[in-house]
């Protein structure tokens, strides 16, 4: 397992029907679960490793130094867990956290709706009390791996009279029931891991509301911060990848003076490399500042914005350097597919425009219109 992941398909996601590409993957997950290292900084009683932030950082660095693969990819670990730890009841924590750390339950995120994209709080999925449980009706979209998930955390409207942000709740729904169906959405890269998820009298027990009823917006925002950090985290991974110039030089070659043969491309590559390094250091600095209790909370918006825009630039330049080869369908490196996929980076998880709005308002304090 000491090889970087090459594709998302190679990763272990767990769940009720887990798939492992090799026995090593299974063993690696079991060993890390024993140590609580699928969620190193969670309390031991919930299946975590009980490490402090500093210890967690050391573990991550050691793992990175070993080129160890992440044992488990999990929206439960990255997103729902932190929200449950902060806002969940003790019973919710005991019920939901340990299966997450063991990779037994795979979670999906039910946030966006067809008419509520950037304006998330305008969501209209209905959640109404019906005896001792809720009935949920509506549609979510951009549910990542919704067709493979076991449970879903869903933003729903529980008060239709209240102001936009005041009638929203976050509920936990088991997807293994007839009222929940999913349909994959084909992306322009030809791939599809996003789904539409439909709720048709889907049931949810009353004790599966996270935080106070009608106060889900607070929980939702907290969870979004972790989503941005997760995306920022994958940006770190990308930035630490093979230097762009190495890839480009191999493709394009050097001229008699020892500089890249395509002089115009060289300028774009060097600027992108400089920006990438400085961005990589920024992710480190923001993490160090957070650890030191300094820094600004909304910085995750800045990392999400700059990291995804930079990743798009990186792939554009890789496409230029690969030339005609990459434009052939079925080209073995699948570069074109990955390049097309990057176009969604600045849309999913909050568009670049939304991140800029957050920076403008929460960090710079600029006035609303």
């Amino acid at each position, binding site marked *: 397992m000491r090889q970087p992941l090459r594709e998302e398909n190679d990763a272990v996601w767990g769940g009720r029907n887990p798939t492992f590409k090799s026995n090593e993957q299974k063993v690696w997950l079991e060993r890390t679960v024993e140590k609580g290292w699928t969620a190193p900084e969670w309390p031991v009683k919930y299946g975590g490793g009980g490490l402090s932030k500093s210890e967690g950082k050391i573990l991550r660095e050691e793992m990175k130094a070993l080129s160890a693969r992440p044992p488990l990819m999990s929206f439960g670990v990255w997103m729902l867990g932190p929200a449950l730890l902060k806002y969940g009841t003790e019973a919710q924590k005991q019920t939901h956290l340990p299966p997450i750390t063991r990779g037994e339950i795979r979670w999906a995120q039910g946030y966006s709706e067809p008419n509520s994209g950037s304006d998330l709080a305008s969501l209209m999925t209905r959640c109404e009390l019906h005896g001792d449980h809720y009935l949920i009706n509506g549609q979510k979209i951009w549910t990542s791996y919704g067709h493979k998930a076991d449970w879903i955390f869903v933003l729903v409207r529980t008060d239709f009279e209240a102001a936009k942000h005041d009638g929203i709740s976050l509920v936990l729904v088991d997807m293994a029931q007839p009222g929940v169906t999913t349909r994959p959405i084909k992306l322009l890269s030809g791939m599809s891991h996003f789904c539409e998820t439909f709720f048709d009298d889907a049931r949810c027990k009353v004790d599966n509301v996270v935080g106070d009823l009608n106060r889900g917006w607070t929980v939702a925002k907290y969870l979004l911060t972790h989503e941005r950090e997760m995306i920022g985290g994958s940006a770190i991974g990308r930035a630490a990848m093979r230097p762009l110039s190495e890839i480009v030089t191999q493709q394009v070659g050097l001229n008699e003076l020892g500089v890249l043969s395509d002089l*115009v491309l060289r300028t774009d590559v060097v600027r992108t490399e400089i920006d990438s390094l400085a961005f990589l250091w920024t992710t480190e600095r923001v993490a160090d500042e957070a650890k030191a209790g300094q820094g600004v909370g909304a910085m995750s918006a800045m990392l999400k914005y700059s990291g995804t825009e930079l990743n798009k630039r990186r792939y554009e330049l890789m496409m230029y350097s690969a030339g005609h080869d990459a434009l052939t*369908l079925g080209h073995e490196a699948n570069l074109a597919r990955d390049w*097309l996929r990057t176009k969604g980076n600045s849309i999913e998880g909050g568009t670049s425009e939304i991140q800029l709005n957050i920076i403008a308002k929460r960090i710079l304090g600029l006035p609303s219109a």
Partner: protein
Amino acid sequence: MAMVLSDEQKILRDTARTFLQTSAPIDQLRRLRDEASADGFDRKTWESVVEMGWTGVLVPEDHGGVGMGHVAAGVIAEEMGRTLMASPYLSTAVMGATAVVGYGSASQCNKWLPPLAAGSLNVAVAVDEGRSHSPASISTTAQPTERGFRISGSKFFVADGHVADLILVSARSAGGPNDTNGISLFLVPSAASGIEIQRQTMVDSRNSATVRLEGVEVDAETLLGEAGAGYSALEHVLDAGRACLAAEMSGSAQQCLAQTVDYITTRQQFGQPIGSFQALQHRAAHLFAEIEIGRSAVIRALQALDAASDDRSLIVSVAKSKVGWVAQLAAQEAIQMHGGIGMTDELNIGFFLKRVRVAEALYGDTNFHADKFARLRNY
């Protein structure tokens, strides 16, 4: 020359727009892709194109064409760029015609132009041999034989090569790997013995082919122009293709902006159309300005071809480089401004992103032409 369309060209534009939006909307390309069409284009629509005379747009009337010139050819390409009609138009009607009309002997013109104009002869241009466009870097050889030449080599990224009847092949009859001297052009029937054509579907759902020539024996009549002196003819043919690709990309860019403006005018978020947000307005306005600037370069390049201007290469490089960049900006901005739906295959914009990428790479990407421009200006 005034940079406006003549009345004749305006009629052509309006006819083309109506025809293409009715008979070859972008859904046609989607269908061809989803059905994995063997031809990669719609034969029925192509017949209508032939009937309208577009295949003869650059062919003189005395050879069965309509001889309307490059501005007209670009008008057609621009409209095709709006609906992404797939066809051998560029290879055949633009580049093939430019080659034969400009450099063919009387007998070559008589032989090839009438069927080309009549739509019964498809041409493909086989020039590149490597990862990226570099027309002088070829190692395909043409050795003199008793009855003509023996050609051997491999050509990649030959647009519409799989449906070509006649292939324009650049081959080296003298000189070293990057010499512009020593390059000869041949009009080789695709059915000639020793030619192997392998189709490759591209990311834009259009076609290109790998063309392998193994000791292909051709007679002297296939030579276009003078032996060893074909490079400037090749550049001319390429420039005609580049200018029309720029026209096509300009049409695509305009379509991306138009669709985006429509979308953001209607899509509501935060209680208002997202097109009322100033950040999107300014980006759309900037894109509009860039598209307009690109359009001027396109018409200038087409006029330079018609006028056989000394500055043709420089002007064409401006157009291909600028519009290649602008069209990519347009497709990217269109996706971003469409938000979630912009990521999906369902939205047509993805087709534009893909086609523009291929068109931008074809016959020299924006960096290639920037570099060429600088070299033409001696820096």
